[in-house]
């Protein structure tokens, strides 16, 4: 499992899809959204938490189909399935590698990007914290969606369609936590909910994904 | 015949129109597909038995 995790990280780094890419995409989205908006500055701080969370979510989305797709196409997923590693462990290793290469860098970069959107430093800290708690759920849910659409070649759009509705609760609670923090209100309840979703995802999704993988390889 | 719908006549009729249209459409699609599949199946069974 550790080896698979290490291999996936190495592959991500080698093919230039490592830590930087998601970050830069995140940056671009964060820059583009105000451009698309009217030039009203006061509205910016108001929309900042949502925009940052949405940016993180979309950056996550774009790399989801790599998680299993590559291995499925070149046949190594078949080989992994015949190896002593259970498919649940494969799922966890891959979701963890995905999180490390996208979720974590995003969470660490968010406070800095928050500054671009007039977010206060304190709210930025909460942003970082909420992303740290929430991005594991994003990776886990996303990897689950990826197991469902394995057989669909380059089903990026279908994958997003399946995954985005599942992202709704995480997004709502995460953005709400930051929003409350930026207004100086208590933000512990939404933050705990985000954590709960992540924990719930860790508890349930490996089994669902293992089953889906097995079905797809059949 | 038509009841007096007052100032909201447009809204109410549009609501009924849209809904009945949607229902009719879904019924039509289900029945049409049902017919075509049924016909294809009887043909296939006939060819098999022949």
């Amino acid at each position, binding site marked *: 499992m550790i080896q698979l995790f290490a291999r996936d990280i190495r592959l991500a780094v080698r093919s230039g899809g490592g830590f930087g890419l998601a970050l830069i995409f995140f940056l671009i989205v964060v820059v583009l959204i105000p451009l698309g908006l009217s030039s009203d500055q006061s509205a910016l701080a108001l929309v900042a938490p949502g925009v940052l969370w949405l940016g993180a979510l979309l950056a996550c989305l774009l790399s989801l189909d790599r998680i299993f797709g590559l291995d499925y196409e070149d*046949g190594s997923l*078949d080989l992994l*399935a015949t190896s002593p590693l259970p498919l649940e462990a494969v799922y966890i290793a891959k979701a963890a590698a995905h999180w490390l290469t996208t979720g974590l860098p995003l969470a660490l970069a968010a406070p800095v990007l928050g500054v671009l959107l007039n977010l206060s430093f304190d709210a930025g800290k909460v942003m970082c914290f909420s992303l740290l708690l929430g991005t594991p759920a994003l990776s886990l849910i996303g990897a689950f969606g990826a197991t469902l659409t394995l057989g669909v070649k380059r089903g990026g759009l279908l994958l997003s369609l399946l995954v985005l509705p599942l992202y709704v609760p995480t997004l709502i609670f995460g953005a709400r936590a930051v929003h409350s923090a930026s207004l100086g209100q208590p933000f512990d309840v939404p933050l705990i909910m985000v954590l709960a979703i992540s924990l719930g995802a860790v508890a349930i999704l490996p089994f669902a994904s293992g089953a889906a993988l097995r079905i797809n390889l059949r | 015949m038509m009841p007096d719908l007052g100032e909201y006549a447009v809204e109410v009729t549009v609501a009924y129109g849209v809904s009945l249209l949607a229902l009719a459409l879904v019924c039509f699609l289900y029945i049409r597909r049902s017919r075509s599949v049924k016909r294809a199946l009887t043909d296939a069974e006939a060819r098999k038995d022949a």
Partner: protein
Amino acid sequence: MLQVSNLSVARGGKILLHDVSFSVEPGQALVLRGANGIGKTSLLRCIAGLQTPTSGKILVPETVAYAAHANGLKGQLSVFENLKFWADIYGGPRPDVALNSYSLENFAYQPAANLSAGQQRRLGLARMLVTGCRLWVLDEPTVSLDVQNVALFYKVLKAHLQGGGAAVLATHIDFQLSAESLDLTSYIASLNMSSSAFEEALE
């Protein structure tokens, strides 16, 4: 080591092979033969545990080493890294011996994407050696290999058998190793067998 009894194999909802039985003992290799599309790959996938047979039983060791039509290589990883990864996953021996057996030493630090078709195939076969598994399941192992490398493959396979291993393989070429062969033609399922009672029930 491998015991297959009364196996029925289906693919895409259609039964292909029916009532196949055979067994392979340590030290033996079994060559599966049959025309294209007869169901060799599907049968091997059943043995590897990637597919469930529609009926019958398969007795296999807990882990088997399976080499499919595709090699399952990572182009961005070097030849050595590819092998090392599988060695780690299976807890098998280090890749050096495997590299040497298929004379891939010179390519060890090249990315696998830069290999030619035959070299990639050799790497795919070398993977078998690092799994440490005793049963090998090989689907057309010699595809794209030149004469010398086919000989190399025979040598490796012989050593594996002599060490108490066993192998099932599907191939279309003349197999020049003393091995039993099983022609699947006699097991072709008749057309009106359907794989699920459900589909029959509608008549």
